């Protein structure tokens, strides 16, 4: 009794300690609300502008911090929100909150197609493309005569400073809560995963495009909300202040100063920088920008992770693993690791027919055919550059064939997105491990489990069970970067298995493994095969794969030079010539 109670109490205490930050946050919000209610106009205005930047900072953090798509044009949505709200108020005399709602909806509706197109861009290109879009928005606002044009126009409904500050404070709290919710939700998990490695996320069955666009729309909606309240506060709309680049830069600075991609970083950054620049404005109006610039330099050089990283060094403000710790798994509620009855053993599941792939003049694969049967293990061997990994890329949709067809059962896989193929039941590992450094081992397994499972409870149970199966339970909250290479491999195999695949593609998983680890993998593969899973394994370590392989296919320069039962293939003179060696030189992998 006491043995089970003691950890419970410890967990509750730990929880309480973690929730202390929310208590502190609540007190700060209460104090701010007091300022809004009973402070003078200047104080309320300072509160308003601080909260405005808090909202903008969180808006930017969602797209640029959580999903890693740094944007230089999110202020464009601030401008759209401001214009939409102004239009609602001027043309239709809507109340401020209705106008704000309209602004948010308009921004989201606009962000949906824009995000779909723009998020195909990567890195600095996305950042600058967004910058260009926000400039175009400003130019449109300048040239239309609808709402004041370039000169701007007063807005009829103006709130008092106190009430706008209070509303903005509410929005800021909302932005914090939204981010906190995101970081504990499957969507947040997907965003962090795609920020780390988009391909690996796709291979885990994540529709990365949908996740990115959702984040983009959330970010746009938040920015538009800030814009609409801004109009309500100042009572005036003009292109120069609605599409203000300084806002964008200041927002970015705040988030980076506080800590990008974290829950509390944007808040800390926005509040600290707002207060500092306000104080500087009073003391040194001329030198304010110079001092701010110097502050940035100091922050980046001495504090690259932002303010939050200072706290994280003491274990505070760290991100908490989603839905952790993994619950203990009782024997009676064990789930099968693989789908129950895939079909009869020996039934063909995956078929590649005469697959061809050319890269310019090089034919990487030339009319290669391969079949995987349920309950069988196919070994694909061959020298480096034979086209083995290319074949996997074609099967999993990361690359397109120039000819031939790949079928899963009766379904043609042509032109299917990688995540659809993963969901259809083909899971893979990568030649070099592609972990998600931001996720813990537990979350790495949870991510595909959520794709494959019907409910949250089932996913949690399946992931916990897999964690145990891989002997990683004690490291459940470890970052993949801290795991030794062998365990990292296991984690990657586990990630693939969480999809409950009908076909499992393993790309050199046994390279560099100890005999003990190879035995573990063999056990896992036998279990998979017994459940009817079809396995295709690329392997260089021939002695490691041959004992369990049912069928061997040998590739050389993109063509199949031999296939058949392992003992036959290994005696084939062409295979010995091309790959195994004639015995005159030392075999490398022996």
């Amino acid at each position: 009794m006491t043995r089970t109670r003691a950890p419970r109490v410890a967990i509750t205490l730990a929880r309480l300690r973690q929730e202390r930050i929310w208590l502190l946050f609540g007190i700060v919000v209460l104090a701010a609300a007091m300022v809004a209610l009973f402070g003078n106009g200047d104080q309320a205005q300072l509160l308003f502008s601080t909260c405005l930047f808090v909202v903008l900072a969180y808006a930017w953090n969602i797209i640029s911090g959580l999903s890693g798509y740094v944007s230089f044009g999110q202020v464009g949505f601030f401008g759209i929100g401001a214009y939409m709200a102004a239009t609602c108020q001027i043309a239709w005399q809507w109340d401020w909150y209705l106008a704000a709602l309209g602004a948010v909806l308009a921004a989201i509706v606009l962000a949906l197609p824009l995000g779909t197109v723009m998020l195909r861009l990567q890195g600095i290109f996305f950042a600058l493309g967004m910058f260009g879009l926000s400039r175009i928005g400003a130019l449109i606002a300048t040239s239309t005569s609808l709402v004041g044009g370039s000169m701007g126009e007063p807005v009829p409904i103006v709130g008092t400073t106190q009430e706008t500050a209070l509303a903005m404070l509410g929005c800021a709290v909302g932005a914090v809560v939204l981010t906190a919710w995101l970081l504990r939700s499957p969507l947040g998990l997907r965003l962090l995963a795609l920020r780390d490695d988009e391909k690996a996320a796709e291979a885990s069955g994540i529709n990365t495009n949908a996740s990115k666009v959702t984040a983009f729309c959330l970010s746009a909606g938040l920015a538009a909300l800030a814009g609409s309240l801004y109009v309500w506060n100042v009572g005036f709309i003009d292109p120069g202040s609605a599409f203000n680049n300084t806002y964008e830069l200041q927002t970015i600075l705040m988030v980076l100063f506080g800590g990008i991609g974290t829950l509390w970083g944007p808040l800390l950054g926005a509040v600290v920088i707002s207060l500092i620049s306000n104080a500087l404005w009073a003391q040194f109006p001329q030198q304010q920008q110079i001092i701010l610039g110097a502050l940035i330099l100091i922050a980046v050089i001495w504090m690259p992770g932002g303010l939050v990283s200072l706290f994280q060094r003491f274990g505070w403000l760290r991100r908490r693993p989603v839905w952790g710790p993994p619950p203990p798994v009782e024997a009676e509620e064990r789930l099968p690791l693989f789908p129950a009855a895939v079909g009869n053993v020996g039934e063909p599941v995956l078929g590649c027919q005469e697959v061809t792939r050319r890269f310019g003049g090089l034919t990487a694969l030339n009319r290669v055919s391969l079949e995987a049967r349920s309950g069988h293990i196919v070994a694909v061997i061959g020298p480096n550059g034979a086209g083995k990994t290319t074949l996997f890329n074609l099967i999993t949709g990361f690359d397109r064939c120039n000819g031939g067809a790949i079928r899963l059962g009766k379904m043609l896989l042509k032109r299917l997105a990688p995540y659809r193929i993963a969901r259809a039941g083909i899971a893979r590992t990568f030649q070099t491990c592609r972990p998600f450094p931001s996720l813990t081992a537990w979350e790495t397994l949870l991510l595909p489990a959520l794709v494959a499972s019907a409910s949250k409870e089932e996913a949690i149970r399946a992931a916990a069970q897999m964690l145990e199966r891989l002997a990683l339970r004690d490291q459940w909250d470890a970052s993949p970067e801290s795991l030794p290479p062998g365990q990292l491999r296991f984690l990657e195999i586990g990630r693939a298995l969480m999809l409950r695949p009908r076909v499992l593609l393993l790309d050199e998983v046994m390279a560099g493994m100890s005999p003990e680890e190879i035995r573990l993998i063999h056990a896992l593969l036998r279990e998979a095969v017994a459940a009817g899973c079809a396995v295709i394994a690329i392997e260089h370590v021939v002695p490691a794969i041959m004992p369990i392989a049912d069928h061997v296919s040998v590739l050389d320069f993109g063509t199949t030079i031999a296939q058949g039962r392992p003992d036959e293939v290994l005696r084939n003179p062409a295979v010995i010539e091309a790959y195994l060696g004639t015995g005159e030189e030392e075999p490398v992998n022996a």
Partner: protein
Amino acid sequence: MLQLQTYLLLLLTGIMWGGVYLLMAFGLNLIYGVMKVVNLAHGDFIVVAGLLAVTLYGAFQAGPVLAIPLATLLFLLVGLAVYRGLLAHVDTTGSQGELRTLLITFGLSSIISNIALLIWGGQYQSVPFFQSAVRLGPLFLPESLIVSSLVAFVLAFAVQFWLTRTRWGRLVRATAQSELGAASCGLNTGRIRLLTFALGAAMAGAAGALTVVLIPVQAASGGFVTVQAFTLIALGGLGNYLGALLAAILLGVIEVSSSYFLGASAASAMIYLIFILVLIVRPQGLLGHRGRI
């Protein structure tokens, strides 16, 4: 006939303006190509060099002939100091590396432009040099534009020659293509990065001191110049020289002709529109990997 003349004039001025933009983007391109760092203070270097030229003109009636070497030397030193003092201290690799360098150079930009504002004030200034117009058959072209674009194209070819035909140029290209590879061949890549940054800054200085005869500047216009320069090199494919040349001419012609036919504000919208379209259709720039240093 008049139609044809107009088109010819638009094309010619477009190409020349393209040359000027190229001149202003050159240092940025070099620094990005080698260091993968977008120097957001680039425009401020140009603007301060221009304002310096204005002061020199005011004090000694000195033209660009004096201002250019002075500004070049000054910004060479500024580049050395910035690299040694700031960029050498941050980790520029990894996913956060890009952000860090952006932030450093952004901070620098804010410092420089605001100091310039304290010194020179906020009004637009220019150097009245090369003010005559040159008659070219039936066409009149401003002399300042001709001189600037000539210098730009000469400089473009000089840099291309330096990069492809000299020992130092080869070292720079090796570092640009693979820093790790260059370092493992025994190159002091830190020194090459230092040299590149200083050189890029010096190019900005030279460009600023020259183009101020054509484009009036004020202390805060650096941000806009940076954006314009970046648009150009992104269009050309970051770090790509041939692409930048092509993009410069394209942008110059588009800007001149669309401002002639559609008006100034439509022209700047056009630039951004083309920029986004190119990014979406060809994110690797106009030429892709070809022509990269």
